[in-house]
């Protein structure tokens, strides 16, 4: 590797970044898996079945619509600007976590079902929020992976503003 040539320098910088990045991940306390793990998808959902176990699964558009019709609480995990531009009808805004928890608990118990969604299939915000809510004691959390993109494309009930 010739450090005097630009290509040699590029190769060195990339290689060094990989060595430090991968190496530090081996030793740090908050290490992450080498390959991102996807959330398990629910084959069927039945909110009335009390398993006593914590539920955190991904659901499809139709399952989300089904839960919407059963008046299950929806939580929008996206940024406020996106929420104001359009969100699932009746969905709660993702403010600070404690404020959100307070808002949810005003409406229901921690053992009641709720649906979390974000922008589109595969966005991470809904999963992040779902895990945070699970850590805070909520036990029946469904992550609607299709999110706002699938919901709005399907023309299902939505609203704008705060």
């Amino acid at each position, binding site marked *: 590797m010739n450090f005097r*040539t630009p290509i040699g320098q590029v190769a060195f*910088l990339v290689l060094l970044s990989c060595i430090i990045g*991968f190496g530090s991940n081996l030793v740090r306390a908050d290490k*992450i898996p080498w*390959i*991102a793990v996807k959330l398990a998808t629910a084959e069927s959902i039945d909110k009335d079945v009390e398993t006593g176990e914590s539920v955190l699964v991904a659901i499809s558009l139709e399952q989300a619509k089904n839960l919407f019709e059963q008046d299950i609480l929806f939580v929008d995990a996206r940024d406020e600007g996106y929420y104001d531009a359009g969100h699932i009808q009746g969905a709660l805004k993702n403010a600070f976590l404690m404020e959100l928890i307070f808002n949810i608990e005003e409406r229901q118990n921690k053992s009641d079902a709720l649906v979390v969604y974000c*922008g*589109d299939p595969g966005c*991470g915000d809904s999963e*992040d929020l779902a895990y945070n809510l699970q850590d805070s004691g909520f036990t029946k959390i469904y992550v609607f992976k299709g999110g706002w993109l699938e919901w709005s494309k399907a023309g299902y009930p939505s609203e704008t503003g705060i």
Partner: protein
Amino acid sequence: MIGYFKSQIAFFFRIIIGVVFIYASWDKIIHPAEFAKAIGNYHAVPFGLENLMAMAMSWLELLVGICLIAGIMVDGAAIMSVVMMVVFIFAISQALARGISIECGCFSVTEKSGDNIGIQTILRDIVYLVMSLVVLYRSERKFEFFPKSV
């Protein structure tokens, strides 16, 4: 590299991009899981490779920033800066074209920064891209310590 741009301007841009990269890398190095999610949000990386990318890219940004400011391997750092800006511009553009509503993940990956992707983030990266090209095609090597000449 063939020199077109005055070395004073190139030096000024070198420092600016260097500071931007170091600043941008910091939060990502501290919070790799959040950075990996931010990358995953763009849907531009297949097979769950966003985690590996998050581990390496945050350090690459830091190293490029340090090299640009310290005047070490400036050509290589400037090329990487150009490549990264092109990748960022492509990633943001394809996300916007697909109607994906996400936060940028450019500087902060933990807080809700409100830095959502949009035309403004693309324009910002185009400015950094132009600055990187000016550094790459500078007329002479001012305040550079390795290599001093090609």
